[in-house]
Each structure stands twice: as C-alpha cells, then as structure tokens.
C-alpha cells in the first residue's frame, strides 16, 4: 500500500479499494516501526489522524469527497497547526502550540487530507542537513549514517521511507529541492507568492515559499493545486488563477527547449553527479527536447547575495522570539533586568546556526554597512533575476544539478558553515529570482540518489510539472525505495 503513489492511493480511495482509516493506520504503523531510527517526526498526531480519516471516509460515503480526501500527509513543523505543537525545530518553540492553522494546513484540511504529524527540520529552516534541529538530526533512509538534506529533512525522509504518502516543505534557498535530491524523491518549490505564507513561520520573507515533497511529479501536481492561489491574509500571495496541474501533466508532450547553464557543471560539482545529470538531459533529448547552452552571468554570486539577504530578514523576523508572550523563557529570567531577560531567553532558546545568522543579519543591516552589504546584495539579486529572464526568452526550462554531491555523512560538514552553505549553490538562484523549480530523481551514485533540477519562468508550474512527469513516464528512478522500507 505504502509504495503506491499518492495519485494511485487517491484512485484506490475513490474506488473504495481501501478506506482512509485503513490507509492512515497503515502509515501510522510504519511511523511506529521506522521513525525511531529515522527521527523524521517531531510530533505524531495519531489520534487526530484517525479522527480525520474517519471523517474522510464519512465524507466519501456522503459522496462529496475531493481527490485528496483521506490521503495521509506529513507537515513540516514550520506550519502552524491549531492545537498541535509547532516547534520550527527549535528549543525556542518547544512548548509552542499555535492557536491557528496556516493556510496550507487549512486548505489541505478542507480537501479532507489527513495529517499524520509534524516533521523534523533544521532550526527555523536554517540548514542544509537537518542537523541544526533541536530534536536531533534526521537520518537518510538510504543510509542512516547520512543526512537527508535540509531544511525539510524530516519531510524528505518520511516520503523516501514511505512512512507518509507525501509531505509539505518550505524552500528559502533550496530547502525542498536539496533534501528531495538527497533522499531520492520529487520536490517542488513554486513561484514566490504562488502558495500563501500565512501561518508559515518566517525565515526570510522575500524568499520563503511553501511546496511539497512527493514520490512523483503527478503527485506534486495534485497537491499543489489544492494549496496554491490567492490568500487575502498574505499580501505577497499572487492573484493569479490556479491551473489544474494534475490535468496539465497528462497533456501530450510538446517540443520544449531546455537551457543548460554550463556554469552549473563547474569544478564544484561531483563528477559522478555530473554524469547522472548529463544522462538525464540525454533522456530529455530522446523525448524530443532541444538542449541549449545558456549563460547565467551572475549566478556565481547567488550564495554570497543570499547569505546577506536571508540573514538580514531573519534577524528581524526572529526578533519576536523574546520570551515575553510565547516561546522559551529562561527560568527566573523574569526577575532580571530587561536586557538580561532577553539575552537569557534568546541565548538559551536559539541554537548556534540561528544565532550565527541573526548576528550576520544584524551586522549587514547596521548603519555604515547597509549599503555595502544589503543594498549590494539586492543589486546582485536583480542581476540574477535578469539573467534568468534573459535565458527564458530563449528556452522553456533551465536544467542542471540540484545539489553538488549526493548525501553526506552526519557531522561531516557541520563544523564548516561555508562548506555547508555551498550545498545550495544551484538552488538559491531560483529563490532570489522567485522562480518555480523542482528536483526529481535521475540516477544513483554509489547507491545514493541524485536529483535533477528544473527551473521554469514565473507561474510556469504547469509546464514544469509536465516536463518532470514525462521524464518520470520513461524512467523509474523515482520508484526506487531503500530496501528496508520497500
């Protein structure tokens, strides 16, 4: 049951070959069995899940089921869930129970989907390995000694190990695509503003975007069409109609031109990963796509620009965690003077990586440094956007690697922030330019999955998902499951 795609499960539910309660029990049992080793979940909401599943079955019996009614999903612990702990992977929010549902949660609930629980993540989504979580690292289902990628590492591991049918994630610099690549699954980060950020705890507001991690592009299409679209509660959400992605992916393949930025195949890319990507591009040629070399002149500046803009926004976004109204309050801190009160609450509540970024962000926004860092980074961001816009005048999609290497060892890069930051070298560009992008499984290197990244013009999620789907019709990388979880 668990190795069936979400699309197949939806069909099973519709045909009443399985009930939502049976399906939910099955996944809860698998979580019980495997999650001690994986650590993919921070909170499992078994009781609530079974209630939702029962309600879903009743809804189906009444005849008003939606395609997702009864589908068990896992949600990244960055989305606020009414009555259920929302930790954002941080000690700061260890006891935080949100009084409301994020728009993403609300829309899935309206569709009748079942929430299995909340998944582990890098603290406040700051990390590329899921090692910065207060709740400990998540283990890669392909090799428990390795990281699953981050920051949506729990979601990626849960889908890869088939302990959830699919999962939500967020992507600020690659946090959906990179773990999808390292865990051998499909992940999509939509256009900035396509999915509401309301109720999603902010890391870097101008870059954050919610998306999904799934087995297949068709699954992603089904989920995305349920959550995308205007939300009056998020001023940056886009007022654009939401196409039926699940119908678009099945439309016949048309000739597309795929741009290949040669700078993505530089010395920083693992040569075996490079071969996998080249092979995937060949596969596209066989499908009838035309490959064309494109130049992204400023893409090499994306990591430094990102590590100015994102920490700057984060330093401000995380100021609200002061221990006054919610969140961690150090014992007896209330008796201290105000400055000490803040320092103790925040000093104890935040982990090292979060502190590093708050410090960096505070620095780049400071008087005397603002122009040299923040403004300069904004200029670079514009140049990178322009690069992509220029490329998309000639090509329909841009393709390349998602991550420079396959999954690495837990602890291997955690002492070197720069090396860790370079994991996102190929993914950050799409965030800076606000573009939709995906990662899909395209091969293995020494038993570890490799991800192909596809980037599309703004709001071209339809063509993007379709290109991924047609690739997945002729390949089976996405159907491979680590032996233990098969």
């Amino acid at each position: 049951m668990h190795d069936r795609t979400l699309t197949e499960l939806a069909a099973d539910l519709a045909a009443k070959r399985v009930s939502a309660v049976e399906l939910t029990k099955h996944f809860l049992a698998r979580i019980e069995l495997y999650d001690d080793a994986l650590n993919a979940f921070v909170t499992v909401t078994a009781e609530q899940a079974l209630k939702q599943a029962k309600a879903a079955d009743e809804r189906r019996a009444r005849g008003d089921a939606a395609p997702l009614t009864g589908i068990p999903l896992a949600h990244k612990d960055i989305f606020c869930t009414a009555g259920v702990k929302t930790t954002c992977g941080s000690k700061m929010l260890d006891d935080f129970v949100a009084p409301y549902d994020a728009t993403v949660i609300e829309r899935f609930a309206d569709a009748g989907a079942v929430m299995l629980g909340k998944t582990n993540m890098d603290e406040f989504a700051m990390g590329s390995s899921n090692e910065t979580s207060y709740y400990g690292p998540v283990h890669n289902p392909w090799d428990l000694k390795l990281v699953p990628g981050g920051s949506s590492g729990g979601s990626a591991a849960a889908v890869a190990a088939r302990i959830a049918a699919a999962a939500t994630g967020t992507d600020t610099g690659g946090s959906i695509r990179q773990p999808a690549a390292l865990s051998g699954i499909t992940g999509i980060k939509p256009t900035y503003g396509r999915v509401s950020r309301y109720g999603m705890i902010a890391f870097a507001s101008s870059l954050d975007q919610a998306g999904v991690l799934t087995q297949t592009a068709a699954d992603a299409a089904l989920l995305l069409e349920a959550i995308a679209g205007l939300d009056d509660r998020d001023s940056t959400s886009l007022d654009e109609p939401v196409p039926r992605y699940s119908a678009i992916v099945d439309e016949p393949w048309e000739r597309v031109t795929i741009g290949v930025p040669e700078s993505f195949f530089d010395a920083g890319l693992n040569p075996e990963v490079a071969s996998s990507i080249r092979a995937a591009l060949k596969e596209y040629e066989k499908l009838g796509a035309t490959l064309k070399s494109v130049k992204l002149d400023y893409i090499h500046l994306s990591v430094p620009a990102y590590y100015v803009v994102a920490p700057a926004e984060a330093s401000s976004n995380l100021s609200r965690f002061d221990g006054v109204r919610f969140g961690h309050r150090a014992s007896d801190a209330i008796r201290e003077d105000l400055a000490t009160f803040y320092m103790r609450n925040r000093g104890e509540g935040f982990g090292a990586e979060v502190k590093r970024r708050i410090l960096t962000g505070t620095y780049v926004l400071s008087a005397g440094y603002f122009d040299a860092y923040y403004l300069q980074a904004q200029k670079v961001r514009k140049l990178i956007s322009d690069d992509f816009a220029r490329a998309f005048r000639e090509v329909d999609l841009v393709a390349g690697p998602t991550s420079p290497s396959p999954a690495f060892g837990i602890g291997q890069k955690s002492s070197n922030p720069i090396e860790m930051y370079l994991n996102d070298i190929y993914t950050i560009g799409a965030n800076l330019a606000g573009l939709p992008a995906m990662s899909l499984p395209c091969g293995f290197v020494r038993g570890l999955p490799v991800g192909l990244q596809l980037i599309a013009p703004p709001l071209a999620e339809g063509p993007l998902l379709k290109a991924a789907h047609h690739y997945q019709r002729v390949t089976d990388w996405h159907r491979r499951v680590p032996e233990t979880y098969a």
Partner: protein
Amino acid sequence: MSWEIVIGLEIHAQLATASKIFSGASTRYGAAPNAQAALLDLGYPGTLPVLNAEAVRMAIKFGLATGCTISRRSVFARKNYFYPDLPKGYQISQYELPIVHTGSVEIELADGATKAVRITRAHLEEDAGKSLHEDFAGMSGIDLNRAGTPLLEIVSEPDLRSAAEAGTYMRKIHALVRYLEICDGNMQEGSFRCDANVSVRRQGETKLGTRAELKNLNSFRFVEKAIEAEVQRQIELLETGGRVVQETRLYDPDRDETRPMRSKEEANDYRYFPDPDLLPIVIDDDAIDAVRATLPELPDAKRERFGAQYGLSAYDAGVLTAQRALAEYFEEVAAATRAQPKVAANWVIGELTAALNRDALEIGASRVSASALGALLDRIADGSISGKIAKEVFEALWKGEGTVAEIIDKRGLTQISDSASIDALVDQVIAANPTQAEQFRAGKQQVLGFLVGQVMKASKGKANPQQVNEALRKKLG
C-alpha cells in the same frame, strides 16, 4: 546677545480607522488590556500584515489638504528595536519613501501676519503597545490594544521660531485633521501628540544649532511650556560656555523643566530595511481623484467664504470655522432662520458655546439643535420675544423643556407688542417716576434708558423694547 529659536515638530495623528493598520482588530479606545489585540498584534509566529486601505485614503486626504505631493509609490520599512510593548521586535513604518511629502500650511502669527510652515513628509506607521509600570507587584504589564493602531507622522521643516508659533502650528494641524475626519484629535487619549526638535542659534547665524528632541508632548500648553523651558536651558548653557548635546528629552510639567530620556551612548541603530511582507503602496491618479472628491471645504477656504457670504468679521469667521462641526452647525442655523447671519453667529459663539463648555460637550452633542436655535432666532426677528427672554428660552431648550413655541407658550413669554398694553405700562411708569420724566422733557436724553428699564421691569421683560422706546418718546415729547 540675541538668540534665534528654531523648532520643527513631528506630529503623530492616530488615524480614525475602525480597525488597525495591519490587522482586523478594533481601534476603539478603553477596552480591557489586550482585549483588542489580534494574533498579528501579539506578534504571533506566521502571522502577516495586510494593509488597511482606509489608512492609505486618509493619508492621501491629508496630503491633498496640505498641498503635498502624493507618492505614486511608497514603501513600508521595518524599524528594528527590542522593547516588550513592541511585539514583533520591529515597528512597521515608512523610511525612505513616505506616502506624502513636500507641502505646507499657513499659520496666522500674533501680529496678524501669516507664515507658511513647510511640511517635509507625512508617513504611515503602526503604533506600539503600552507598558504599564504600576500595580504589577514590581513588574511591568503590557497592554497591546494600541499596538498596530495606524498613525500618520507629520514632520515639519524647522520653520517655527517660537513656542507660540509651534503651538499655533500644532493647533492648525489639529483642526485640519479633525476637519478631514482622519483623526479624532483626542489628546487625553493620545490620539494626537507630538515631538519637538528644538535648537537655538545666534541671530544672523545660518547653521542650525544642535537640537534636542522633546518627546511625547500631548497638549498644546505642554508643547509651548516644554519648548520655552528647553530654549531657556539651551541659552543658559550656551551663554555659560556649555554645549548642547543631541539627545532625547522629556518635559516634566510639575517642575517645568526638561531632562534627558536616554543618553547618546544607548542611541539605537534601527536597521531600517524594506518590509518584505508588504508590497509597495502604489497610488494612481484615479485613486487620488477619488479621495479628492471626498475632500471637505478646508478651514481657510471656509473662513473666507463665511466672511463673504455671511458678512461676518474675520474673528467670528475664524471662531466658527475652527471646527468643522461648529461651522456646519452655524450654517444650519443661518439657513433655518430669518434672523441676520451676524445674529446667528453671535448666538453660536456666545450662548451655545458657553453652554457646551459649561457641560463639557462637543458640538455634535449639543442639547439644542440647529433648527431649534433657528426657530428661537426667528422669534426674536419677528419681535415676538426680546433678546433677553430668548436667553431664558434657550436655557429651557437646553434643559429639554420642549420646543421654542411650547416653552414660550407654557411660560407666557410672548412679547407684549400691542400698543394699548404698552401705552398703559408707559403711563404707569411716567406717573410713578415724575422726576425722571421731567428731566427727560428738559432734554436729559440719558434718562430714557432708565425709564425703558422700568417699563421692561413692569412687563417682566416681555414688552417690546423698541415699542416701549417709541411710546416713551411720544408721550414725553
């Protein structure tokens, strides 16, 4: 040594929107602490601001009324600092690109001359909450009802040259925002308050002196007194060889002095940057025209019209147009009565205002409606009651004793104007005051007043004084 005083004001006008600038919570004053704080106002994780369009319209309204440029594109920025009554750890304000900039208002100086005070900018921002430092067993309480209330911060150029000018300018802006109905102007509740940047320089010097910023001045009187105290302090300092330090100071009304609020060493670096949660405010010509169509007649224009249309003195026109509601009340009275507009003006400025003041009421809560006052003035005009009796009727109206006709009727106040009755009264008085009657006949005109008074007294004030006057002259002539 002669000193020139240089003052610029930053006025914070709380915009009279029903809900907050970025959340749906009510802005009503006086609710229980934290009863009017939405999750956004509490700074809850995941919440996002959504701009209240009414606040934007109000800012445009102010801009149009002061000849300012309305920015086609303006941007919200975050002002970052930590304080418990600032729940997000930043205040959403406008920094580099305010919604309104570069305009002016004209103020009238004590000598009757007028002066243009330039407005640098007016920008939208959210208010912070309140810290309550008493009654919490040595701890501070936080009330976030006010957090997120929309403010328009109106910044003037340093064009003001005395405490009195600053007070006049502040009153002018106060009247204007109330006219525009964008702020209730309630200073006790903090809806209208200001900071003053004060410096002094030697006469003839062109460079500005170092300024002190006086914070949170919430009455016209305090603004003037605080500035006077601060100017005095700076001059004394400079004349004894000292140096003014740029700092924020607070005015202590009990001791009539200013003192430093926080020292320069602690000066905050607010790390302003554009708020990524909000799109730039884009305003096109249509939006501006739509607001322009809702602009009321402004105080200056109204004052001129009152002079021309009603033949009122500059003073009367000024008093009547100081408040939009008072001006509207006057126009209603003038339209409702056959009496001269000047008479209507006297009654509104005199009896009515006195009664309002006595009972501490706003004009909107007047116990005598404009139509009732109009009816009362009609009765004076047609001679059925005297001005003196009219005051008695007005008091009765105020107490709610009925309509003008009912009160006059019930109290038997109708003026005596049939000549037979008046003649009889006049005869009585002449007979009772032979000496004075003789003096008048001998040419002592002043005595007439006394005799008229006696007739009026005999009639309990109801005799028509004009007729009494004529009858006396005839009989003694």
